C-alpha cells in the first residue's frame, strides 16, 4: 500500500501535537476558574496555616505559572494525576474502574450504530422512494434533533419505570440473581440502546445521502448494465465508495457522541467517566476534572486516529 507508513506517521504526529495543544488549553481553562483549590482546603475546621502552606507547596501553587505548566504537562503525559480534592484517594484509582465502563458503553454503541447504519443507509438508498425510505428518513430526522437526555428520560420512564424491563440506575447490582456479565449487560442495555438510536439517526441519514451520490455515478450504471448481481453492485462498488464520507463523519460523530455519553451517564446514573466529569466540575475537584477531561479527549483523539487509518486504507488518494 503506497504511502501508508508515511501517512500513519504523519497522522501520529498530528494527533500528538493536537494532544499537546488541548492539554495546554485545559491548563489555561483551569487557571481561569474563579475558585482556587486552596479555598476548598481552608474549609476544614481546624486547618492550620502551615497545613495550607503545605498543600500549596504540594500542588505547586506557589511556583510561577510556567513551572506549573511544565509540571502539569509532564504529569499528564505520564498519567500521574495526583490525589482528588474531594475524596482521599488517588485520582487514578477513581478513574480506573470507570474508563472501561464508558468505553464499553460508548464504544459499543458507536460501533454497532455504524455497522447497522451503513447497511441500512445503503439499503434504503438503493430502494429509494419506498415506504421504508420515507419512514426511516423521517424517524432519523426526528431522533437526530432530539436532545439526548430527553430521549434517555423517556426511555427510562417507559421501559424502566413503567414496564420494569430494565433497571433504573447503575452498573451492577449484587442483589440481582444474575451472573456478573449478564447483570452488567442488563444494566447497560438502556443507555446503550438510546446512544445507539441517536448515533444511528445521523449515520443512516449520512450514508443514504452519500449512497445516493454514488448511485448516480457512471461506474454504478455500468456495473448494473453489465448484469452484475444487485447485491454485489450495491455493496462492493457502491457502498465501498459511499463509505468514505461516512468514515469522515465518523470522526465528527465520535466527537459529538462522547458528549451524548456524558449526558446519558448523568441521566441513567451510570457510573462512568462522563458522570465523574460533571460531578467533579460541580465540586470544583480540579485533579479529577482535569484527568477526566484528558482521558475523554484522549479517547476521542485515538478514535479519530483509528478512523483516519481506516480512511487511509479505503481511499488511496488521501495517502498522497
Amino acid at each position, binding site marked *: 500500500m503506497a504511502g501508508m507508513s508515511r501517512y500513519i506517521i504523519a497522522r501520529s504526529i498530528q494527533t500528538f501535537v493536537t494532544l499537546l495543544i488541548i492539554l495546554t488549553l485545559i491548563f489555561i481553562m483551569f487557571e481561569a476558574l474563579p475558585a482556587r483549590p486552596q479555598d476548598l482546603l481552608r474549609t476544614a*475546621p481546624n486547618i492550620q496555616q502551615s497545613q495550607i502552606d503545605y498543600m500549596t507547596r504540594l500542588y505547586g501553587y506557589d511556583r510561577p505559572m510556567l513551572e506549573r505548566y511544565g509540571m502539569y504537562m509532564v504529569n499528564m503525559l505520564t498519567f500521574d494525576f495526583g490525589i482528588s480534592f474531594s475524596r482521599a484517594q488517588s485520582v487514578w484509582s477513581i478513574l480506573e474502574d470507570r474508563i472501561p465502563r464508558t468505553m464499553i458503553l460508548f464504544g459499543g454503541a458507536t460501533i454497532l450504530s455504524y455497522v447497522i447504519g451503513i447497511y441500512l443507509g445503503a439499503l434504503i438508498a438503493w430502494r429509494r422512494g419506498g415506504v421504508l425510505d420515507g419512514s426511516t428518513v423521517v424517524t432519523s430526522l*426526528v431522533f437526530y434533533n432530539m436532545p439526548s437526555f430527553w430521549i434517555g428520560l423517556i426511555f427510562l420512564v417507559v421501559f424502566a419505570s413503567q414496564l420494569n424491563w430494565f433497571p433504573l440506575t447503575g452498573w451492577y447490582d449484587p442483589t440481582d440473581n444474575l451472573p456478573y456479565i449478564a447483570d452488567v449487560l442488563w444494566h447497560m442495555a438502556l443507555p446503550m440502546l438510546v446512544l445507539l438510536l441517536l448515533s444511528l439517526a445521523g449515520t443512516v441519514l449520512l450514508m443514504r445521502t452519500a449512497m445516493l451520490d454514488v448511485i448516480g455515478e457512471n461506474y454504478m450504471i455500468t456495473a448494473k448494465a453489465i448484469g452484475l448481481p444487485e447485491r454485489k453492485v450495491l455493496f462492493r462498488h457502491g457502498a465501498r465508495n459511499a463509505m468514505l464520507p461516512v468514515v469522515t463523519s465518523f470522526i465528527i460523530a465520535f*466527537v459529538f457522541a462522547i458528549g451524548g455519553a456524558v449526558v446519558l451517564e448523568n441521566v441513567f446514573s451510570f457510573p462512568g467517566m462522563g458522570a465523574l466529569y460533571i460531578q467533579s*466540575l460541580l465540586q470544583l475537584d480540579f485533579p479529577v476534572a482535569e484527568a477526566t477531561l484528558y482521558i475523554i479527549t484522549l479517547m476521542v483523539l485515538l478514535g479519530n486516529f483509528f478512523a483516519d487509518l481506516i480512511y487511509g486504507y479505503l481511499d488511496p488518494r488521501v495517502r498522497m
Partner: protein
Amino acid sequence: MSEEKKDDGGAKAAGADLQEAGLRAFGRFAKGFMGTWKLYRQSKTGLMGLGIVVAFFVMAAFAPWLAPYGKDFRAPAIDTFVADYATRELPAERNWSTVMGLTASMRDHPMQRIMVYSADGVGIVYPVTEGIGEETGELGIVIGSPVEVPLPANVSYMSYVHFSTTFFFFLNTTEDNGTTLYEYDSVFEYVREYNLPFVPKYESNLWNGFSFVVQSARMAIAFADDHNVWLLDKRPPTAFEPGIDSVNFVNNITISDATIIGNPLVVDGDFENGSMLIVPTDAGIRAYELNITKHPISMRVIDIKIGDRVWVGNYTTADGDFTPVTGNHMLAFPYPYSPTTKIGKEYVAVASTDGQVVAYDRESGNITWANKLLLTSIRDFTITALHSSPNYVILVGKTGERGLIAGLDPKTGRVGFNNSMYSTVDGYLNSDPQYVSGQLRYVFSTEKGTIYLATDLMRINATFSAPGGGAVTPAAFLGNIYIEMSKTGNYFGVVTQANTLFVETLTGVNIAPLPPGTYPSGNYYPLGTDYEGHDILTQVMFGTQAELLVGISAAFFSVVIGTIVGLVAGFYSGLVDDLLMRSTDVMLSLPYLVIMLLFAAAFGPSLMNIIIIFAILSWAGIARVIRAVTLSVKERAFVDAARVSGASDSRLIFRHIGPNVLPYTFLYMTFSISGAIVTEAILAFLGFGDPTSVTWGMMLQFLQISGHSLDAPWWLLPPGIAITLLSLAFYLIGRAFDEVVNPRLRKR
C-alpha cells in the same frame, strides 16, 4: 443617459446615482430572492420547517397574549397544597402587623389565640380551636369571633416570648428620648408598664434558663441603643414560686469608644457558667460574661447580671479586614436541638459583605474559621443576615433578583453537603426563617408574598401564596393547636392582599406537580404544572423567546467567525491558510460538549456566556466549508478580472468573493441554530444553564432536580417536544436550502 444626468447639476446627479445604484442592488437582491424562493418552495419539508419556525416566532412574540397565564403565575395554594387552612376577613383596611400566635408552652396549653395589630392602636385577638373548618369541611383549625383589645397609641414594635407562661412586650417610643415598655399576659391582659430611659435600637434573643428539676424559669433579654446595653430580667411565676412575677432592669454596660451596630446575642453556657453576652460594635465584637448565679442544689437561677468584658474580636482575618454585615441579624450560633448536645455553641458567627462568614471562639475570641463561602452553581451572592438555628447557622442573602437561604455546617463553616445545602427563591426574604420544631421545617416568606416551607436541609418542599393574591405581612409561625407535639397542628399566618387573615398548617402535602385538568381554584391547566405551580404551557410559550434568542445569536456569532476564518484561509493560501486550517482541525477534534461544560463552569452560568461559548467552540465546521468554497470561487474568471482592474484584497474578499460565499453561510447558520438550541438544552439540563432565565432546558433541569422526572410526563414531554420541533424545523429549512444552493441535491 448619463449625459442627461450630468446636466442636472453635480449634487443632484450624485444623489440620483446613489438612488439608482441602490435600486439596482435591491432589484438584484429581489430577483435572487424570488429565484431562491421558487426553488425552495419545491421542497415540502422545507416549507413545513419554515412554517414551524414562523409559528414559534409568533408564539414568542405574542406569548403575553397567547399564554393562559402571566409569566410569573403560580398555582394558588388551594390547588397545590393539600392542607388545612382558615381565613377571616379583617375588620378594616389597615396597616396590619405580622400575625402573632398567642401560645403557651407546648407542654401545658395549646395555641389559643391569634392576634394582629395596627400601628394606630387597634389590636384584634381571635380565639382559635380545633373543629370542622368552614372552608375545608375537615377537622382542623377554626377561627372564632374577634375581640378588640385596646393598645397603647403609636405602638412601634412588639415582640413576644413564651415559655411556661406567655408574656409580651410592646415598645412605644415617646418624644423625650424615652420608651415605655408594656407587658401583657398570655390572654392579652395588661399587666404593667415600665419607663425606659432610652430608645432601644436593638434587641437580643431570649435567654431562657428553665430548670426541669424545680420547674422554675428565668428569662432575660438585652436591649441596646448606639452605646448602651440593658439587661431585662424577668422572673415569671413558676411551680416553685407561684407568687413571684417581677421584671427588673439589671445593670447595663456603656460602650463609649464604639458604636453598637447590631443585635446583641445571648449565648447560653448550658446551665454552667460561661453564658455570655456578645455585642457587635463598629470596632469589633465584644464579649461580656453573663453571670448567672444558680442555687447549687435546685439549679434555680438566683441572679443574672452582665459581667466583665472577656474578649474583643476584630474584623480581621488572615486575609485582611472585612466589613461585617450589620443589623438585626448579624450574629448567630448553632444551638443544639436538645439541651444535652453541645455541637457548635463554641462559636459566634458574623458575616461579611463580601460573602465570608467568620467564627469567633466563644471562650477566647480567636477566629476558629473564616470562609469565603462557595455555592455550587451560584457565583454572585451577598449575605444579609445570619440566624441561629438547631444544629446549623442559617444564612439569608440575595443572588441577583432572587433570595437565598443556606445552611452552614457548624463543624466546617462551609455551606453543608458540599456547598449544596441552599435554595433560591423568587424575591428577597422578608421574614426570618422560623424553625418549627417537631416538624423539622423552616417557614419563611418573600417580599413577593409567597410563603415557603423548607426542610432542615434547605430544600424547598412547599411554596404557596395565599388565596386572594399574596401575603402582605411576613410569614410567622404561630404555634400548635394541639397539646401533644405528636399531633400535627402547627400553623403559620399572614395577612393577605385581600385584607384577610390566612392561616395554614405546615404539615400539608404538596401535591404539585399537577397533572393537566381543572382544580379547586377554578383554574384550568392544559398541560399541568411543575413542582412550584408554574403552568407548563405558559412556561413553554414564554420560554420560546429565550430559546430563539440564544439559538439565533449563538449560531450567528459562530457562523460569522467561521466565515471570516474560511474566507481568509481560502483567499490567502500558504502560511495563513495552513495555520488557520491546523487550528480548525484541532477545534474539530475536540469533544466540544465536554469542553463547553468546562467553559460554562469557568465563566459562570448566564445566557450571554452560553452564546459566547457556543460561538467560540463551533465555528470550525463552517470554516472548513467556506474555505473550500472560497478556493473554488477564487479560481473563477470574474475574480481575476477584478484583480487585474486593481481591486484591493479586502475589496476582492468582501465585494466579489463574499456574496458567492454568503449562501453557504446562511445554509450553515440554519444548521447551527438547530444545534445551538439542543446544546443550550443539554447545558441547562446538566446544571450549567442560566438559572434566571426560563428556557425549555431549564424546565427539564428543574424537573430532574425536583425528582419528578419519572412521574410527571406532562412536565417531561412538552419542553422536549418543543426543543425537538424547533431544532428539526431549522434543520429542515437547512436541508431545503441546501438543495437550492447545491443543485446536485435536487430531485431526491
